[in-house]
């Protein structure tokens, strides 16, 4: 290549980069099955990318670029494994099987045909990669970084920008994560149906949800990589749903994400301030995503077993999504769903949300009973929403002096300037009414 890039070279590189983003997870997964080590698998996949960058600008992007990359990486993997003494015997078998296939075919389109025929294997490998990257032996941020890197196709720099940390930090996390997996002897496989698999799957879903929430919490002034995390999480969720179509909680999570994402445009006001659900302009809710969310929820419901926590949360989100105006909201149904959620994943925050729903469905008196039961909850001691909700319910009951006390307390607990202003305003109003 010459010193200055011609436009053709730049276009070729961008096209190859796009192919890489689309195909890299599968290539890494396919190689990982052979070499049984994520670090080595990623390196070999990168080697294939380098080969593509060297050859494709001349020869053009092949008709089936994914198969080309996979074949190239797998050939190197096989060579590597052949050379390793540790795998000598397994290897020889492996080498024999693949060797006889190869002697009948040539590298390139024939191998591609064989790969295409073995599509089921690619999906199995991809699922193994998902489960391995999200292994509970890894710290949460390690799982997140590894997943976004190996499955999301994000660069280290992009992950760093998205999570507001330094690039070397992310690079270290990924290196250490791979080492931890190797040292712990984590096997490149998906556990059989049972308790371990449920646990491992929960870990995968947790990672995806975490990535989504990180993106969802981004504010208007942030780097666009941050809200972009919502798209990344959604895509990962959808991929997982395609790989595990019979797992209801996967569909439940996807449904929840689709519906939450549908509100993205309505969630922030003109100066970037957050807008509450009940105050959002619902015309700005993305109906395509809402439909997709309902479809995913229907798939979850059609599968056997009682709804899990994600499906229930999705059902709650769906209740809101169905209401054209806040007054149309089916609060009794939401209250029922929170009852179910509280049984599945009891927590003070869930209980507080349940109190709000019960108040909307059955009157502030009922809601207040539930909130009062939370009064001493240590987890909520510094949680400004507890006194906020209590104040709101008291105001609705005409107990304005008490409401004012709660709003003042809430204002002291929140770190958000704008929120504090709003709460103090409500306190003042309650003061006037009492």
């Amino acid at each position, binding site marked *: 290549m010459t010193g200055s890039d011609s436009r053709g070279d730049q276009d070729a590189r*961008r*096209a190859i*980069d*796009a*192919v890489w*983003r*689309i195909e890299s997870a599968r290539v890494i997964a396919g190689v990982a099955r052979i070499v049984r080590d994520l670090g080595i698998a990623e390196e070999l996949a990168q080697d294939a990318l380098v080969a593509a960058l060297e050859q494709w600008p001349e020869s053009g992007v092949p*008709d089936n670029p994914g198969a080309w990359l996979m074949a190239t990486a797998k050939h190197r993997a096989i060579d590597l494994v052949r050379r390793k003494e540790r795998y000598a015997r397994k290897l020889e078998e492996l080498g024999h099987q693949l060797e006889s296939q190869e002697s009948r075919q040539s590298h390139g389109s024939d191998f591609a045909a064989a790969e295409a025929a073995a599509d089921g294997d690619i999906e199995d490998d991809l699922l193994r990669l998902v489960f391995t990257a999200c292994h509970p032996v890894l710290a949460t941020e390690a799982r997140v970084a590894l997943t976004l890197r190996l499955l999301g*196709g994000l660069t280290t720099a992009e992950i760093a920008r998205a999570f507001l940390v330094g690039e070397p930090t992310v690079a270290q996390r990924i290196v250490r994560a791979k080492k931890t997996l190797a040292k712990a002897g984590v096997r490149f496989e998906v556990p059989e149906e049972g308790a371990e698999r449920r646990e491992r799957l929960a870990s995968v879903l947790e990672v995806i949800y975490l990535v989504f929430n990180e993106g969802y919490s981004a504010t208007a002034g942030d780097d*666009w990589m941050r*809200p*972009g995390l919502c*798209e*990344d999480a*959604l*895509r*990962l*969720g*959808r*991929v997982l749903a*395609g*790989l595990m179509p019979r797992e209801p909680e996967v569909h439940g999570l996807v449904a929840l994400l689709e519906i939450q994402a549908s509100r*993205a*445009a309505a969630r922030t006001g003109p100066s970037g301030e957050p807008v509450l659900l009940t105050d959002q302009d619902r015309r700005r809710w993305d109906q*395509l995503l809402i439909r*997709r969310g309902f479809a995913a929820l229907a798939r979850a419901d059609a599968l056997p077993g009682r709804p899990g926590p994600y499906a229930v949360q999705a059902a709650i989100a769906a209740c809101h999504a169905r209401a054209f105006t806040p007054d149309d909201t089916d609060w009794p149904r939401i209250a029922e769903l929170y009852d179910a959620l509280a049984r599945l994943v009891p927590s003070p925050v869930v209980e507080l949300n349940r109190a709000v729903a019960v108040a909307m469905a059955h009157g502030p008196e009922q809601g207040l009973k539930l909130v009062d039961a939370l009064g001493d909850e240590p987890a909520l001691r510094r949680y400004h929403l507890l006194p906020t909700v209590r104040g709101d319910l008291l105001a609705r009951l005409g107990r304005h002096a008490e409401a004012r006390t709660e709003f003042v307390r809430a204002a002291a607990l929140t770190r958000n300037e704008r929120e504090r202003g709003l709460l103090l305003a409500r306190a003042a109003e309650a003061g006037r009414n009492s």
Partner: protein
Amino acid sequence: MRYMSLIRINEDNVPEGGPGPELMEEMGKLIEEMTKAGVLLDTAGLRPTEEGTRLRWNRGELSVTDGPFTETKEFIGGYALIEAKSKDEAIEWTSRFLRIHGEAWDITCELRQVEGPDFD
């Protein structure tokens, strides 16, 4: 980022009998692949222009015209709504859609980004 891919074709270029069974099968496979990749949000073919209707608003005057529309031979045969991280990715997926049409087709996909929340 979302992209609409508008499938445009000249009526003289439509092969006899339209898309054959192999093409339909390949399209089905690609649609499944793109759906599973979390990339394809929506796609559909559009019924022929003979069945279509155009409504024109010309500064206060509404006119309604039934198809076929003879002034141009090019028509929109269908669309795909793609979610991609970059235009280059959208281009790559769209080229895969076009490649499966093989030697018998002369067909164009116009990729247009969909207006959306501005993250910049």
